[in-house]
């Protein structure tokens, strides 16, 4: 076959595929011979974990005389997973993607634009950006010298922050083989004209919440695309830099991935959707129960999964692609536990009664409370679990028959908020203090006897209404002018936050369509002025997965209108 294609090589344009095949064969041959020994997979391990092929940790020296070994200073810390580098504390870490290392350095103003204008940078940094040293493309040899001796391909000394690594030849070859693959291609989910996104929604989601989220997303996409079309149709409008951005423009496409039936089958359903049209990222989303199946899919497929609305996120330190607003119910449980212990600090004996639904929404926080309390010998904790309303009622009845009224009752009603609250309404003096999760606030009955009102406390992982955030007004105005009904403010504002962060992220990465790079931007920039006021503060950092870290304990206000009042500081467990 090889000879045949070769003989047909120059016979005309209809043989183009043959020429291509030959080329591919040739490239393959070159790759095979030159990389016969090297193992990019081991190079990746070295890049990400600082591990040599022998299994030992890599050793290096930074700042001239600080020696270290191990993962602390693996390449990924500074150059990030994407290889696009980072800018932190005014130190600019150069990119080490294959296209940047194996090409001469030129001034691509579009890429520099981000660093120069979007971020606060000290003078030294902007100077580095305005006069980057030109250098030739790296060869394997000059690259090895950069990594071992800190001298770049032009012979210039690199900044001493770039460590000098002691690497055996074999590991160096593996590392270089890996660098040759790093961010060479756009990730799936983007083509010449369009960038594809999805949101995920399962059946049984409340129709008002479903509509609130989808309408916000659809309007956002519609307006994004209107702006893009306007820009593209109007080439004379632009200032001089515009042509450098045109390559970054994509129409935003939103797919709604509906999940049906048993959560065990969700991963497979997601896979089918993905095969029909890969997406660059999954934004927002709502499912009943735990988010885990979606997270597993995102981690396996390396798809950013950005800020779903869930009280049951998957807590996994190794996750690289999922970010959440907060830890959900396990956070609420930890905050309640901390509040109880602080409030009761002077008591020798703290008695807690915990009743929880046998669903995930009940078990996850109940487990968290049990975990926190189990080593505290001042606490006596009694647990009651229920599987249905009948069992709930018999548990509550049992409780009301204990002639000594429990002091502290912690309730995790799961899907049974309404039933639990109605029962409390009929038995307002069941316990001295009743703790409930924030979600129960959505199911409050009309008239709550004041005897009960005084006893009820809620964990509340959001900003309280009395605090005005400057951005809230702008977001409201945006929704009004687009004719979006605000039926669930928090859900819609949070959706909008996720969308704007993605929009800014894509602006920043220009046409370097790397999902890792987008994730890195989001980790870097979550803590900016985009917080729509739903949380006191949203912030991430490299590897952080939860943007808001605490909660208030709140009570109901005495009058019907003014909602909740914080009775604690912002508690971080």
């Amino acid at each position: 076959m090889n000879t045949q294609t070769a003989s047909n090589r120059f016979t005309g344009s209809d043989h183009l595929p043959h020429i291509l095949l030959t080329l591919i064969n040739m490239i393959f041959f070159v790759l095979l011979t030159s990389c016969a020994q090297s193992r990019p997979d081991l190079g990746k391990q070295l890049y990400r974990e600082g591990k040599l092929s022998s299994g030992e940790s890599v050793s290096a020296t930074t700042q001239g005389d600080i020696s270290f070994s191990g993962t602390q200073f693996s390449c990924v810390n500074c150059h990030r997973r994407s290889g696009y580098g980072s800018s932190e504390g005014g130190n600019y870490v150069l990119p080490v993607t294959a296209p940047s290392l194996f090409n001469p350095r030129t001034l691509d103003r579009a890429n520099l634009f981000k660093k120069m204008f979007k971020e606060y940078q000290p003078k030294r940094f902007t100077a580095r950006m305005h006069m980057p040293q030109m250098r030739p493309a790296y060869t394997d040899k000059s690259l090895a010298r950069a990594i071992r001796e800190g001298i770049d391909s032009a012979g210039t000394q690199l900044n001493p922050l770039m460590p000098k690594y002691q690497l055996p030849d074999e590991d160096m070859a593996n590392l270089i083989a890996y660098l040759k693959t790093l961010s060479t291609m756009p990730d799936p989910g983007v083509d010449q004209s369009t960038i594809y996104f999805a949101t995920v929604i399962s059946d049984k989601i409340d129709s008002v919440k479903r509509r609130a989220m989808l309408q916000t997303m659809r309007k956002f996409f519609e307006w994004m695309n209107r702006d893009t079309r306007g820009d593209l149709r109007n080439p004379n409008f632009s200032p001089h830099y515009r042509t450098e951005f045109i390559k970054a423009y994509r129409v935003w496409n939103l797919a709604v991935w509906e999940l049906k039936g048993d959560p065990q089958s969700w991963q497979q359903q997601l896979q089918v959707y993905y095969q029909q049209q890969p997406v660059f990222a999954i934004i927002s989303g709502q499912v009943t129960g735990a988010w885990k199946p979606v997270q597993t899919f995102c981690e396996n497929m390396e798809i950013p999964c950005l800020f779903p609305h869930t009280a049951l996120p998957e807590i996994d330190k190794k996750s690289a692609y999922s970010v959440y607003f907060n830890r959900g119910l396990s956070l609420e449980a930890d905050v309640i536990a901390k509040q109880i212990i602080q409030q009761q600090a002077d008591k020798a004996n703290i008695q807690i009664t915990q009743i929880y639904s046998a669903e995930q929404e009940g078990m996850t926080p109940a487990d968290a409370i049990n975990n926190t309390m189990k080593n505290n010998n001042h606490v006596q904790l009694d647990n009651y679990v229920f599987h249905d309303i009948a069992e709930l009622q018999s548990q509550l009845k049992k409780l009301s028959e204990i002639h000594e009224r429990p002091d502290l009752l912690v309730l995790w009603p799961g899907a049974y908020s309404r039933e639990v609250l109605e029962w409390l309404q009929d038995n307002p003096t069941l316990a001295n203090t009743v703790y409930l999760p924030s979600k129960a606030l959505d199911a409050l009955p009309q008239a709550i006897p004041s005897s009960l009102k005084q006893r009820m406390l809620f964990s509340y992982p959001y900003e309280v209404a009395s605090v005005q955030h400057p951005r809230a007004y702008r977001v409201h105005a945006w929704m009004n002018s687009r004719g979006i009904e605000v039926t669930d403010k928090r859900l819609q504002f949070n959706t909008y936050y996720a969308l704007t962060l993605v929009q800014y992220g894509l602006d920043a990465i220009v046409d370097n369509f790397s999902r890792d790079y987008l994730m890195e931007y989001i980790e870097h920039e979550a803590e900016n002025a985009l917080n729509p006021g739903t949380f006191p503060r949203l912030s991430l950092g490299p590897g952080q997965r939860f943007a808001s870290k605490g909660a208030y304990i709140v009570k109901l206000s005495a009058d019907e209108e003014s909602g909740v009042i914080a009775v604690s500081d912002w508690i971080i467990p």
Partner: protein
Amino acid sequence: MNKLRQALFTRPRVLVLIILSLVLGAGVTQPIAANKFSSIQNQQNDKPKYYTRTRQTYVIPEMILVNQHGKNVHITELLNNDQPVLLQFVFTTCATICPVLSATFASAQQSLQSIATNYRMVSISIDPEQDTSQTLQEYANRFKASAQWTLLTGTRDQIARLQRAFNAYYPGNNKMYHLPYTYLRAANSSQWVRLEGLLSTQNLIEEYQQVVSHSMQ
């Protein structure tokens, strides 16, 4: 076109005083060698410096923070006493510069002992909601911190006040833009030496030596 416009009408860039490096010959302010240590630097065959030094007087606000063992610490008691102090602002998930800042502390721990034994090292988290005392303990273990190294967390407001007191507040309200500062203070002094930039172990030792010997005269 909103995106571009937004990007263009950007927030003001901060001008921070950093020497580009002697290699580029673009010293901006604050000559480093304007002191009696210049002789030592010359001996060091003109290695480029990547940091600047200024002398400052700071008023430290009274507050109670929490250390890596979960214990309360009065900040003024920790900082205003007869121990020399070395202080940095870091956060534990910071990937690029904080590991280097802390590694400079870690690798100088031993040598500083031989200059003035009773120093106190302090690393203050600028991401206090993420960095609980337990997280700080893990971070301290990573750097084999001795008992003379205190790591502190607190509320966001406390930390912001402290950063302002040390003129170390980051711009843009985003900790990712924080700059690498190291502060040194001799025993019983209210004068601080503020170093901006990343240091080698040798840089830190020399600066410390100078601060300590200065105060002994």
